[in-house]
């Protein structure tokens, strides 16, 4: 086969091998995409209302109602986790909206590499803070109620510490492997432009 024939061969056969979707089928795919897009890109209005209501309820509980110290500590922790998770969700939505798939392929790859590298740098820089904090929060769920209830149990505390540390280390390893693999693959792809 001659190189100049590639175009002719492609053009003469490719359309025969394509089965186009009908407008009805396309409409279904688009409707599905629109719903997926709404869910993924923007936390919905209902979700925001639920978060707002939950935060309000916890704040009322913390300030107005006279509850026990144990309950206050648990509610305050829940408030912190809820607010930080919500902020992360909003930040992620903002990043998703900024990320454009219609950029030229090389630029699109550069953006993705930069994002992954930023992530890797952040994790390396704040390694102790991120994972130490995760261990501390996870462990405090078990230890604080024990102290407050004045029923400290050494065995339960040690076992729960081992469990929390193992889970955090496992997740750390999982994320690190995934990040390295993604970065390596993106760099491999990027190298294809220079070959």
């Amino acid at each position, binding site marked *: *086969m*001659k*190189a100049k*024939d*590639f*175009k002719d*061969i*492609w*053009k*003469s*056969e*490719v*359309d*025969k*091998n*394509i*089965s*186009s*979707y009908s*407008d009805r089928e*396309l*409409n279904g*795919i*688009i*409707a*599905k*995409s*629109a719903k*997926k*897009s709404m869910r993924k*890109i923007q936390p919905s209005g209902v979700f925001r209302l639920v978060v707002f209501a939950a935060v309000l309820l916890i704040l009322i509980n913390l300030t107005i109602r006279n509850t026990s110290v144990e309950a206050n500590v648990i509610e305050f922790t829940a408030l912190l986790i809820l607010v930080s998770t919500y902020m992360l969700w909003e930040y992620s939505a903002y990043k998703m909206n900024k990320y*454009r*798939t*219609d*950029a*030229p*392929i*090389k*630029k*699109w790859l550069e953006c993705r590499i930069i994002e992954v590298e930023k992530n890797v740098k952040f994790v390396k820089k704040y390694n102790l803070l991120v994972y130490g904090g995760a261990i501390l929060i996870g462990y405090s769920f078990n230890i604080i109620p024990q102290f407050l209830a004045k029923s400290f149990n050494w065995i339960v505390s040690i076992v729960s510490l081992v469990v929390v540390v193992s889970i955090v280390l496992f997740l750390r390893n999982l994320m690190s492997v995934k990040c390295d693999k*993604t970065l390596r*693959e*993106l760099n491999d*792809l990027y190298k*294809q*432009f220079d*070959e």
Partner: protein
Amino acid sequence: MKSNQEEFLEIISAYQGIIHKVNLIYFKSNADKQDNFQEVVYQLWRSFLSLKDKNKLASWIYAVAINTSISKIRKDSKLVFTDDLPDFSYVETTNNIEHNEHYCSLLDALQKLNEVDRSIMLLYMEDYSYENISEIVGISTSNVGVKIHRVKEQLRKMLKDQ
């Protein structure tokens, strides 16, 4: 006045061939092609509202379809290693068509190229100018020329060996 969804449907309906062609060079199984079609439509829908230049719809669809396909291949690395014969099972008219032998060989050879070369060759075979390919892929026009020349040689060698 048309709603965004109606306008989007018209565009996808008119240009869906592009997505199918990109699917052909990147995926072999019916399920992967269908999955990727949906993912590409989703990514197009996401960037549709911010699309500024509606005179370059084909280039826009090519860029999104290629980026999404590469991303899917890399996410699901097992796709890279499948080396079955091209799967045409999804084609409605499969029984009525005798596939051109050269076309099958060409498609098979295209699927053995690296991701970037595949996209450049697809755009070349679809009669895109070097300038347009350069805009979509993001490399210089001269680099496009060099790559096309090299890939054509590579394809010729692959087809000769078959």
